[in-house]
């Protein structure tokens, strides 16, 4: 059994399997240590003689399209997650494959959501062998309990591009849900009743997959513009009544946290950027759609106005708060990776300064640079951070898979990486001695901001110096941890695991950073 394959210790001191799903792995060697070689993967050459000259690539339904794509047992099927928890397409594709009698498929989504819980049933029936992509909720629980036949592989958004580009993952059939498309296969995410904004996470799939199917509920006459997905890469177009539930695709509105403790964290981070001199004319930052991140944007906006400072660009996932910055002239551009709310969707569809970007340009580590490292500051979440600033974002402290990596690892390369975390949740300390799962090496994490103080990584002497004399509550991370342990009644017991790897966490360069083990009990 591959599960019992050899375990090696990587440069971070973590035990990782040498073989994952039958494929040999490179163990993590340290940041910037692994140098790739060889050439990029490429899909087969096709001739336009094989496609209708009138450009009409429509297939009557998904099953026909899958059959025409040569669906076979063991193939890898990919989907994107821009429709989030409203997505209908991924499940329909896998269920169509099940009806056609396919077995042992590898499902390769850019992320999975709770609405895809029925994939468990497909795994139980042998249709899906395993998932390579983020798993949370019921899927995370299923994998954490060692029930998946293959090993889960967790990658960042940039890491997913890297894995496809480098040939680690060969996509046999990519199925791309498209809020708008034409019969030639050009597709766009920012218009239509199921509009989701950017389609960036489907770009690699469209370029590298052997076969590409576009599924849309808003077929327009050629040309569909903007064509985020280019029809020249597409084999078939399938029209369906609905690709998803619009109410769950984007939030009508994203909301700032009401928790006073989280607002305190958000405000302290904004003050940190101001006092450390990072907030200055022409700077850039990225913040996600979490409650603290949104509140941070709100506080920073006021400080930018007060100081008369304008950003060159801010990085999405976009929300109404970023759109507001653009409207107020506080940033020249939004460079968007995904779009979280209706204001974001409207803006990306109408404002040329709100740009849909590709994970290739923003995040791919095995490229000729990516702009994640050009962002001055980024505010991220985490489930755990340890006293060496190592952080976890995929498992809960009890070892259960909880979140995908998303762009989190890629963002660590920014000029100042700030983790916004409560020091403890209920009675669960977030600052610990050693993270349960290592997802971000401590050398990449500069600041940990909690309601009980801001800890600066001692490696960042420059930041420590920059905030000297400010009124910010700067404290050693060990001190915050000791305080939390005292409140919670001692340090928590560490999670216990069975000796069975259920998933691996990839670093941005494709090496194996850590292992997720089967949970006990």
């Amino acid at each position, binding site marked *: 059994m591959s599960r019992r394959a050899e375990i090696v210790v990587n440069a971070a001191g973590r035990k990782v399997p040498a073989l994952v799903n039958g494929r040999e792995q490179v163990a993590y060697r340290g940041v910037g240590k692994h140098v790739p070689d060889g050439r990029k993967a490429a899909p087969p050459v096709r001739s336009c003689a094989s496609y209708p000259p009138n450009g009409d690539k429509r297939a009557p339904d998904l099953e026909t399209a899958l059959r025409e794509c040569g669906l076979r047992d063991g193939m890898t099927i990919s989907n994107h997650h821009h429709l989030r928890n409203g997505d209908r397409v991924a499940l329909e594709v896998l269920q169509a494959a099940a009806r056609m009698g396919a077995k042992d498929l590898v499902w390769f989504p850019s992320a999975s959501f709770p609405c895809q819980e029925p994939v468990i049933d497909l795994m139980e029936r042998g249709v899906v062998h395993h998932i390579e992509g983020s798993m949370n909720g019921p899927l995370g629980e299923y994998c954490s309990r060692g029930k998946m036949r293959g090993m889960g592989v967790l990658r960042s958004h940039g890491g997913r591009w890297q894995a496809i580009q480098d040939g680690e993952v060969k996509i046999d059939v990519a199925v791309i849900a498209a809020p708008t498309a034409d019969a030639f296969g050009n597709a766009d995410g920012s218009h239509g009743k199921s509009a989701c904004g950017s389609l960036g996470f489907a770009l690699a799939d469209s370029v590298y997959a052997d076969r590409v199917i576009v599924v849309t509920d808003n077929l327009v006459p050629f040309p569909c513009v903007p064509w985020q997905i280019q029809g020249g890469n597409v084999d078939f177009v399938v029209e369906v009544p609905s690709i998803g539930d619009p109410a769950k695709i984007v939030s009508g509105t994203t909301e700032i946290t009401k928790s*006073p403790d989280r607002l305190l964290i958000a405000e302290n981070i904004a003050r940190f950027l101001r006092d450390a001199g990072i907030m200055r004319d022409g700077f850039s930052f990225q913040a996600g759609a979490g409650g603290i991140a949104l509140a941070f944007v709100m506080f920073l906006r006021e400080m930018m106005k007060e100081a008369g400072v304008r950003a060159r660009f801010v990085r999405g996932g976009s929300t109404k708060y970023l759109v507001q910055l653009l409207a107020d002239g506080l940033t020249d551009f939004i460079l968007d990776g995904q779009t979280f709310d209706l204001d974001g969707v409207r803006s990306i569809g109408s404002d040329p300064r709100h740009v849909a970007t590709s994970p290739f340009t923003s995040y791919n580590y095995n490229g000729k640079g990516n702009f994640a490292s050009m962002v001055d500051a980024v505010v991220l979440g985490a489930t755990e951070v340890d006293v060496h600033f190592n952080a976890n974002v995929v498992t809960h402290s009890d070892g259960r898979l909880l979140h995908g990596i998303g762009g989190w690892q890629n963002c660590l390369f920014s000029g100042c990486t700030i983790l916004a975390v409560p020091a403890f949740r*209920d009675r669960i300390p977030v600052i610990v001695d050693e993270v349960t799962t290592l997802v971000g090496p401590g050398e990449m994490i500069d600041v940990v901001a909690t*309601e009980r103080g801001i800890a600066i990584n001692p490696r960042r002497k420059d930041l420590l110096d920059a905030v000297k004399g400010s009124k910010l509550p700067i404290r050693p991370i060990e001190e915050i941890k000791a305080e939390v342990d005292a409140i919670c*009644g001692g340090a*928590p*017991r560490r*999670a216990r695991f069975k000796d069975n790897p259920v998933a691996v966490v990839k670093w941005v360069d494709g090496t194996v950073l850590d292992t997720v083990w089967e949970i006990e009990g």
Partner: protein
Amino acid sequence: MPGVIGRGEAGRRGDDVRSDLYVAVEIRDGGGIDLRLESRVAAYYGDSLRRQAEETLRALGVAHARVEIADQGALPFVVEARIEAAARRAGHAPRGDARPPAAAPARDPSPRDRLRRSRLYLPGGEPKFFVNAGLHEPDGIILDLEDSVHPAEKDAARLVVRNALRAVDFGAAERMVRINQLPLGLEDLDAIVPERPELILIPKVETPEQVLDVERRIAEILSRTGKDRPLWIMPILESAEGIERAREIARVSGRVVALTIGLEDYTADLGVPKTREGAETLYARQRLVNAAKAAGVQAIDSVYGDVGDLDGLRIWAERSRGMGFEGMGCVHPRQIRVIHEAFAPSRAEIERALRIDAAFRDAEARGLGVVSLGSKMIDPPVVERARRLVERARRMGLVPDAGEQVR
């Protein structure tokens, strides 16, 4: 089978409960302790929770019982309070009590005229709000046993508050407890006073005798523990009668450091709706300010209930400062900063006061009886007001201790 002596339960259960727990205790006449425990944080603190439950029962003198615990991540001081409440409700009179070790840092008693701009209400039955309250830097926190606690939960809240005073670090905030209306409030004092709160709020005070009752009970408890120390009293006037007797109430005890007003009950007593502008309470508030000043104590305003309306709060608080109030209550941490800003003197006021203060010291140094600024003579009350303003601004951190520059 051991016989059942009594059964009691405390705390809360359910998936929406956070940082609290449910405890059922069935006291028996034999068979030892049978403990069933489930916890949201079992993976991290399951063993420690079990140990703590056993130690708590031992400290209470419960030797035979069936105990069921459903925990949603309660902190240790809450676990102890809930187990004790359940045991007491089961009819057990504790031999000892199950107080957590004193973890909160010991502090000097608070000065009688300390800053009391903001006091943050914390419902006594909601311990999840306690532990981070000090981080928002209110001048005071109020652990409330009165209106925010359901009548059936008074006994349990008292234990939670008692334990919190021992275990929770509220930072630099003055630690206040609002007891229940008398006579229940006197029983609250028995549990609370030994844990060194710094101020007691008495609700619905209408007579000076009520303050004296509280003062006597405090003195008794302190003499029993042999540790007399300052423990201040802030009466809350919440009726027409209370307002009419404000002056007597303010002067009745040396422990009274401030008067405050409860506007919900006061407007109910008048039989008028409470408005945003507050014209209907203007007389009562101004009368309270006057009575407080006459007695040399602080006048503290009521709360502003609309948490979402920070602009309205600011307007209210600025007007309140203009009337002579020195602070007000908060029902949410986000109100604290607005209140601190509103009760702070303006930059222009501070600068002018500093100039007058400097002129005063200059006159003193030169042995002059008259203070003048430029060609203008300054009257003594103006000098006095300026010096008080400088002192107050300094305590708010608006003037550096040594320097004379306004930040």
